[in-house]
């Protein structure tokens, strides 16, 4: 690295100091259309001198072309970056802008005011620490103000800055301001928003934005910028119990195995005990890796890799925790409906919470919340932008916390399995312990109905080949990839089945046949349940495999020959079986003293001499896609 000369070095140090010792304040602006949100942000950018010459030039020419403010800059044009927005003079989608002052850095999300774009406003709210709510001093608190404030409350935003805008148009009337403050404060209180600061402003004129307005001497509170620069929003994320939703298992050379994720809450140190949920297995933290290298302790917000002291089974979707999280299969939650397609009671959605995907059925809708009165109304469905409280039944246990305690562990989305649209944002209120409510609709549940629910074509991927050919390795990789893209699959591994289901069977021809028959029957049941079943079994006899094929529906049996030659299998000998067979310790071992009959017309042949296991897994996935199984 070239060392800076002292003059540059001094300047650089000053600039780095300006970077600040804390992360940027993330805030959003919301409020009804035309209340002046974009104008306010444009003014903040302009006054903090974040606009560069070419941007100012462009703003000037755009103001002439599209502007609504005569010869002045139309600051809204800085934010409304989409062509349609500029043409229609409205904000459609949330825009993110960055600016900094001497005291703090900011990321601001400008969110749309129109009701039809509420989902984009929710996008901004979900990551904001603070919200600036604008109201037009002439109009006061209107329906859209209430809707947005309600969403702020729902999303757990604890800091709200109410900017009563266009004070110039009400002659800077102190009483008008006071009346709006009273009405808004009572609304915020009902919604559980703790910290409300109210400022009278004129965004266009710059009053009380950066500098104190001379036109409202009766107001002695902070300006918008004073408040934004000094407000303390850091929550108690670090003091909470430790939570790490596992994102990714890092397995690399020489048996390294680390669990990667971003700490959702709390902190943990090397040596501390942790529990893996939902399995409940316990271990200790052996080492912690952060972006900066090894670390004795990590805390909420950090992306880390954990090494555990014990060899236990952990995968994506599991949660490492200290203290007990909720492990639930039934939940009560608030939902904000985001899809034009209304909620379908009794239908199943894909639910994504933390790093876990589960199937979720809305088993009951408790009520809908009326935006104006905040009353709870009876309802049978939720339409676009509706807020309601519902009960969800999950198809597998979910490790979570209530949203009030943790955005990261208590927020979720519901995805429509067919349209792939995000149907709802959800906030967990509590876990339900009784399986009291049945789904609303009873339907005849057939194989095809089950498959449709899973958005896949069930089948058996039958991996046949010699011992040591790589069947289990490849099947495992395929299993993980399918799981990672939300497919429902299950791996039946010949070796593992011999510990349980087939533990009473030996290796004689009859026992081998029985071993296969049982495995095939289990696979058949799973296909009937709509799963993609992966079977890794030597299955040496052609006739037996053909029997399995015949017992399944057309295209349901996919015969995959892992065609590693015997010499190579003997060379790899991962379990030492060949060595023992040749030594005479294993009788009837396939390839040594028992025949292997390769498939004559395999659906897929995997050449492990040319391709790696990863590449072979790619080929299987490509086959499944081409055959429209997934």
């Amino acid at each position: 690295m070239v060392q800076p000369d002292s003059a540059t070095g001094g300047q650089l140090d000053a600039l780095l100091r300006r970077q600040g010792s804390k992360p940027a304040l993330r805030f959003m602006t919301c409020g009804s259309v035309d209340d002046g949100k974009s104008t306010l942000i444009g003014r903040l950018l302009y006054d903090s001198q974040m606009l560069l010459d070419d941007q100012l030039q462009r703003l000037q020419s755009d103001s002439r072309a599209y502007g609504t403010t005569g010869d002045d800059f139309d600051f809204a044009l800085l934010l409304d970056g989409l062509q349609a927005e500029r043409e229609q003079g409205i904000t459609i989608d949330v825009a993110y802008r960055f600016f900094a002052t001497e005291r703090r850095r900011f990321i601001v999300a400008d969110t749309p005011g129109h009701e039809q774009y509420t989902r984009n406003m929710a996008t901004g709210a979900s990551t904001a620490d603070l919200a600036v709510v604008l109201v037009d001093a002439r109009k006061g608190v209107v329906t859209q103000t209430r809707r947005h404030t309600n969403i702020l409350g729902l999303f757990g935003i604890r800091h709200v800055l109410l900017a009563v805008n266009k004070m110039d148009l009400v002659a800077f009337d102190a009483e008008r301001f006071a009346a709006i403050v009273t009405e808004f404060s009572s609304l915020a209180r009902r919604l559980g928003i703790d910290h409300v600061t109210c400022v009278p402003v004129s965004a266009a004129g710059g009053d009380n934005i950066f500098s104190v307005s001379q036109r409202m001497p009766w107001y002695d509170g902070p300006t918008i910028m004073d408040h934004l620069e000094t407000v303390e929003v850091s929550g108690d994320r670090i003091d909470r119990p430790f939570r790490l939703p596992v994102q990714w298992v890092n397995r690399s050379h020489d048996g390294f195995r680390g669990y990667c994720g971003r700490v959702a809450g709390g902190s943990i140190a090397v040596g501390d005990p942790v529990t893996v949920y939902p399995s409940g297995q316990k271990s200790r933290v052996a080492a912690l890796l952060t972006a900066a290298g090894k670390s004795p302790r990590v805390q909420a917000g950090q992306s880390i890799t954990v090494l555990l002291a014990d060899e236990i089974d952990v995968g994506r979707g599991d949660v490492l925790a200290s203290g007990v999280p909720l492990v639930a299969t039934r939940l009560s939650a608030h939902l904000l409906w985001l899809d034009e397609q209304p909620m379908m009671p009794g239908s199943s959605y894909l639910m994504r919470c933390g790093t876990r995907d589960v199937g979720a059925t809305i088993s009951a809708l408790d009520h809908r919340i009326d935006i104006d009165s905040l009353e709870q109304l009876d309802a049978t469905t939720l339409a676009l932008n509706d807020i309601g409280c519902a009960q969800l039944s999950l198809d597998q246990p979910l490790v979570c916390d209530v949203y009030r305690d943790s955005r990261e562990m208590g927020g979720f989305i519901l995805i429509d399995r067919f349209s792939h649209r995000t149907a709802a944002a959800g906030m967990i209120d509590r876990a339900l312990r009784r399986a009291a409510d049945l789904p609303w609709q009873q339907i005849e549940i057939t194989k095809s109905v089950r498959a449709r629910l899973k958005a896949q074509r069930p089948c058996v991927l039958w991996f046949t080949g010699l011992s040591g050919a790589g069947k289990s390795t490849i099947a495992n990789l395929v299993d993980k990839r399918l799981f990672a893209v939300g497919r429902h699959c299950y791996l039946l591994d010949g070796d593992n089945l011999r510990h349980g289901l087939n533990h009473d069977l030996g290796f004689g021809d009859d026992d081998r046949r029985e071993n296969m028959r049982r495995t095939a029957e289990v696979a058949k049941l799973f296909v009937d349940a709509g799963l993609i079943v992966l079977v890794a079994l030597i299955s040496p006899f052609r006739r037996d495999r053909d029997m399995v094929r015949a017992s399944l529906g057309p295209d349901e049996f996919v015969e995959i020959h892992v065609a590693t030659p015997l010499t190579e299998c003997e060379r790899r000998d991962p379990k030492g079986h060949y060595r023992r067979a040749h030594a005479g310790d294993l009788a009837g071992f396939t390839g040594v003293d028992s025949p292997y009959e390769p498939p004559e017309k395999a659906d897929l042949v995997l050449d492990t001499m040319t391709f790696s296991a990863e590449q072979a897994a790619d080929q299987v996935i490509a086959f499944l896609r081409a055959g429209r199984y997934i």
Partner: protein
Amino acid sequence: MVESQPLEIASPEAGANTPSCRSAQGDWRHAASGAPITAHLRHLEDESIFLLREVAALFAKPVLLYSIGKDSSVLLHLAMKAFHPGRLPFPLLHVDTGWKFREMIAFRDQRVRELGVDLIVHVNREGMNLQIDPSLNPALHTDVMKTEALKQAIGVHGFDAAIGGARRDEEMSRAKERIFSHRSALHRWDPRHQRPELWNLFNTLLSPGESMRVFPLSNWTEADVWHYIYLENIPIVPLYLAAERPVVERDGQLIMVDDERLTLRPGETVCRRSVRFRTLGCYPLTGAVLSSAASLPEIIVETLSSRSSERRGRLIDGEKSASMEKKKEEGYF
């Protein structure tokens, strides 16, 4: 399976298993600049690493779009951290238009060698045969050699997620784009119907042929990128640093004469000026700025006191404010 003891792994003597600077993919973590990294940058770093891991976990065949520029350098550095000490779970893809600065290609090949990562270089061969001169026809060149080429590469390799280094502070339509940005089977972006993006939860479901563009640096600014490069000592193409280079003045921009293919227009003369580049692309379309900033600290100081935005040096973005949105709708990155 043989697993070594995690407690041994944590000890500094455990050789290749040690969570140290040296990974399976070469030495990517150079000596730090000495200055402590700020909490602000740490936060951005943690967020980007989280996003990169989500891509690896949620897609069947992701790829990292490596354009050789400073943002790509940061992206690659973050990816190496995200999967350390393992290998990158995706390859790099460079869409080569045939008109990149020679120093960029040399830098690319050197980085790939040093890090031991997989690189796919894609060139639109049919497009190459059209022999489009970027100086004469910049829009067509970009469309054929960049946009079309990218679509081809994604199609040919079956990538379902392409990770890019775009930032929201770069340009107005990017300020509106999601971190996980959906593309139709025709690679189109539909800005009016973006999926809501709530908390850290991304709707990554795709139908056949559809794909996702993912921007882990969305929340970084140009200043953040430079600070991070400085503090982490990340290698960058020397073109970012000022040096005497042969340039011609053309349409108010300084264009470097990188090879003999640049045809001089009447009245143009090549002269040597001390210049550097704020962004890197095809050399006939990338304007240089006059500068004497020959070290990173000088660049940072100059950048932060500059009065023009970085994309100004891109001839292709200039025509009208919404031109990037239009290009993105058509499949430009």
